[in-house]
């Protein structure tokens, strides 16, 4: 897996992401600066990590979404390349129009930093083949604007096409407002684009990949990607 991690001013999770990618793929990811206009040759996964690009000025992800490197990411996605956006990366993908909808201020207005439970809705995607459908995983969140919103038609399409991939749930997989910490519509934590090659999610699977982190539930996402790309090669 030849991954490229985008770096914007104000991003602060790029080293966590690089560490997880290195651990799971046994390859050093390339770090790509926001002002670059091309991705490294042979890149097969682009990752937009979490943080606070441009200090969250204007709207979370708004300025990063218009950075020069994003034209290269758009072209890469159009060719079917895999793109993963985590947290601020998810916000950037929405602002760039690569994913529908938007991420609003958490319903309780608080920045929330803790572990949450996610129900994996599908296992037949490049991003989730390391999990079983219906499996519940524990991963951390750290965001103030993770409240997913879209118009009714978009939500209906996402649901109808099976593009809601992760949902906030109870530890036993029940969808319940008490376990939807940010108030996201339909408890949406992560979605796929129409073609199925761009995934955005608010939680941080890269922070649950080593025993020393107290949990390894995030490994499945990276292991699945490695497996998918090996099978495709």
């Amino acid at each position: 897996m030849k991954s490229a991690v985008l770096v914007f001013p104000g991003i602060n999770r790029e080293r966590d992401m690089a560490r997880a990618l290195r651990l799971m793929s046994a390859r050093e990811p390339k770090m790509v600066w926001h002002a670059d206009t091309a991705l490294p040759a042979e890149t097969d996964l682009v990752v937009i990590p979490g943080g606070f690009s441009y200090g969250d000025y204007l709207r979370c992800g708004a300025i990063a979404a218009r950075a020069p490197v994003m034209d290269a990411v758009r072209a890469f996605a159009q060719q079917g390349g895999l793109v993963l956006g985590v947290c601020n990366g998810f916000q950037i993908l929405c602002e760039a129009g690569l994913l529908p909808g938007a991420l609003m201020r958490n319903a309780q207005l608080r920045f929330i930093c803790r572990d949450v439970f996610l129900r994996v809705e599908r296992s037949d995607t490049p991003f989730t083949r390391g999990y079983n459908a219906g499996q519940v995983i524990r991963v951390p969140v750290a965001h103030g604007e993770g409240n997913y919103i879209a118009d009714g038609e978009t939500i209906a399409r996402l649901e109808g096409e099976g593009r809601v991939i992760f949902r906030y749930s109870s530890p036993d997989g029940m969808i319940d407002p008490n376990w939807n910490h940010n108030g996201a519509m339909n408890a949406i934590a992560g979605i796929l684009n129409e073609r199925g090659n761009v995934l955005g999610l608010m939680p941080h699977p890269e922070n649950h990949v080593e025993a020393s982190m107290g949990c390894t539930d995030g490994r499945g996402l990276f292991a699945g990607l490695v497996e998918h790309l090996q099978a495709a090669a």
Partner: protein
Amino acid sequence: MKARVTVTLKSGILDPQGKAIEGALRSLGVRGVASVRQGKVFDIEIEATDRAGAEAALKNAAEKLLANTVIENYRVEVT
């Protein structure tokens, strides 16, 4: 030319910040506040030869960056 771009949330989009402000105004005893919606104002100085040109440039700015038209509306005023 001086101009102002006002960005507001579309109706129907939940505005938790506006709700919090609304609650704070009530607890301060400000009477008659039925609801509050929070938005953004951009005061922009723009070089343009005519009003129409300035409006077109600002509309472009709003579409491209100032507003997220998935959730927000915008209004351009050139003074």
